[in-house]
């Protein structure tokens, strides 16, 4: 315990795990110890979707000030529709549908960077303008269709071992991989270098444009695969399926200890922050709080946590 307390100042993201634990304990105390395990299973299952897009958003934000992907919600919505339509309720088409969602998301990411580079506009405006168009495409494409996942795919996304969802295990493996890529591989180190000083990175001979293109494509692709998995988990695609992931993806990255000024990223913090946010909602739902109050408290907690954590030095 003392060693934990000693490492806390060095690893501020541990606070989010601690916060998540406290929220869980409060909720379990409220229910009198009932459903504590099921609550954790559900929290893991919901967190994994935030973590997947959060990692994409983290790489983009690490590229430096102003870099952010605001098209993720629209991207998730469109990819979920594409995946479900390609799968067409047919279990043999699952892999094809996943690849289609991945390709759709990657194409959106690459298009985002094309807008940023060709028009030299800030990524915020580029991804925002793109999200208008993606959203319309989704509304038009998904209209009037009953888009249900194939039964096998829906069961797969809901599969769990001893209370731990299979997708969570896969997402943890993916997170570890993302951490290694970020800290130990040329691509990740290049992203960090660009975030710390883009001009210096360029002068040092890094292929800045290629790395940035790759990062936006990665973020888009992760949004795409997330959309497909969400549609499987919730047994259906709809236009609004990605809506909550704009705030969620940004919040988990910032609360998780990634610097908004760029050049400093943190993967484990994303898990802590995602669990914290999901368990906060679980707690409020258990308390039977109304929708308006739930939003109010979520917003206040996010602003409060970010204010307490502080921004760039």
């Amino acid at each position: 315990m003392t060693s934990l307390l000693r490492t806390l100042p060095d690893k501020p993201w541990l606070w989010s795990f601690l916060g998540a634990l406290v929220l869980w304990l409060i909720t379990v105390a409220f229910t009198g110890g009932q459903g504590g395990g099921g609550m954790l299973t559900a929290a893991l299952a919901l967190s994994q979707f935030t973590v997947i897009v959060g990692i994409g958003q983290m790489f983009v934000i690490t590229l430096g000030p102003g870099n952010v992907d605001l098209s993720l919600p629209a991207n998730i919505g469109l990819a979920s529709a594409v995946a479900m339509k390609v799968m067409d309720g047919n279990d043999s088409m699952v892999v094809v549908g996943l690849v289609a969602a991945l390709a759709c998301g990657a194409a959106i990411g690459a298009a985002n960077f094309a807008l940023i580079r060709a028009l030299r506009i800030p990524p915020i405006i580029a991804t925002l303008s793109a999200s208008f168009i993606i959203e319309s495409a989704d509304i038009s494409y998904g209209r009037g269709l009953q888009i249900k996942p194939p039964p096998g795919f829906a069961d797969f996304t809901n599969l769990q071992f001893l209370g731990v969802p299979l997708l969570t295990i896969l997402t943890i493996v993916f997170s570890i991989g993302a951490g290694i890529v970020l800290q130990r591989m040329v691509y990740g180190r290049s992203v960090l270098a660009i975030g710390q000083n883009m001009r210096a990175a360029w002068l040092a001979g890094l292929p800045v444009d290629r790395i940035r293109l790759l990062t936006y494509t990665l973020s888009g692709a992760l949004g795409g695969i997330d959309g497909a998995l969400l549609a499987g988990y919730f047994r259906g695609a709809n236009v609004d399926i990605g809506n909550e992931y704009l705030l969620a993806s940004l919040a988990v990255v910032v609360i998780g200890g990634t610097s908004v000024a760029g050049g400093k990223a943190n993967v484990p913090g994303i898990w802590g922050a995602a669990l914290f946010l999901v368990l906060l909602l679980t707690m409020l739902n258990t308390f039977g709080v109304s929708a308006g109050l739930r939003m109010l408290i979520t917003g206040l907690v996010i602003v409060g946590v970010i204010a307490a954590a502080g921004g760039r030095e």
Partner: protein
Amino acid sequence: MQADATPHAATPGARRHTRAGIVSARAVRAWLPALSFALVVGAIALLNPRAISYLGFNLMLNLAVPIALATIAQMFVIAGNELDLSIGPFVGFVGCVTATWLRDAPLLGATVLIAAIAVYAALGALIYLRSLPSIVVTLGMSFVWLGLAILLLPKPGGKAPDWLLAMVGYQPPWIPLPILAALVIAGVAHFGLMRTSYGAILRGSGGNPAALARAGWSLLKTKVVLFGLAGCFGVLSGMTLIGITTSADANIGSGYTLLAIAGVILGGGEFVGGRVSPVGAVMGALTMALAASPLLTFMNIPPDWQVAANGAILIIVLAVRALVSTREQ
């Protein structure tokens, strides 16, 4: 002698030529908002000549006034190098207060609205003091405003105060009210931000904050003033919106966040450097309002694709601007 004279003769001519090029590129940049507005009005006139009339403008530009006010609110925030992603839900919250408390208990309603402006100003202080990313803070605040609006008005309803209805329903001679209102909004914002000395300081806080701080100006104060002004115009936007729609709904302002950002950028605003234009922003808002539905309806574009049209217009204008800027260099 001959060899000596030629470069001398050639240089001024060449310099004059490039200077003329720069001037025309700058002129195109400055006139781009007016140009895109004229283009949209021209297209409407071509598709449906009857729309270009007192009644036509009144109907088409009705909802442009609250959009213009929200755009000016966003412009103040962008002038300080920040971004407000909560202006839409804030407009919705103000709308709910206007349609309930401001009608039934004017004193309470007015107090709440003034407190809301104070919250906006306090957010500016918080963002500056803790050097927080404004995108995340305002995104969090958007949940706060939406939550409050839902608590206040769980179901669509309420009614606008009569004095507000009378104000919005006023029909001045010759010039339709929305155009008159747009002129007044643009004039007030232009004078305040571009023609007063503190307006220059406010723009400077986005242009070169370090220099401004060295010169002894408080960056905390500029941030508070810019966010406070955004709150004021947000309140005005919500109230006008309810005057037009007569009743409220918690989600009534949800589209305004994007429309307001688009309006500022269309109007020639830049994301960094405190480069904004109030007159351009109002024109950008009118362009968005006209392009968002009347033009598309006349062009028989299905409603599904109307949101996309907003994005496409934004991208086209930015592409033209990028082209002009390349020539400028």
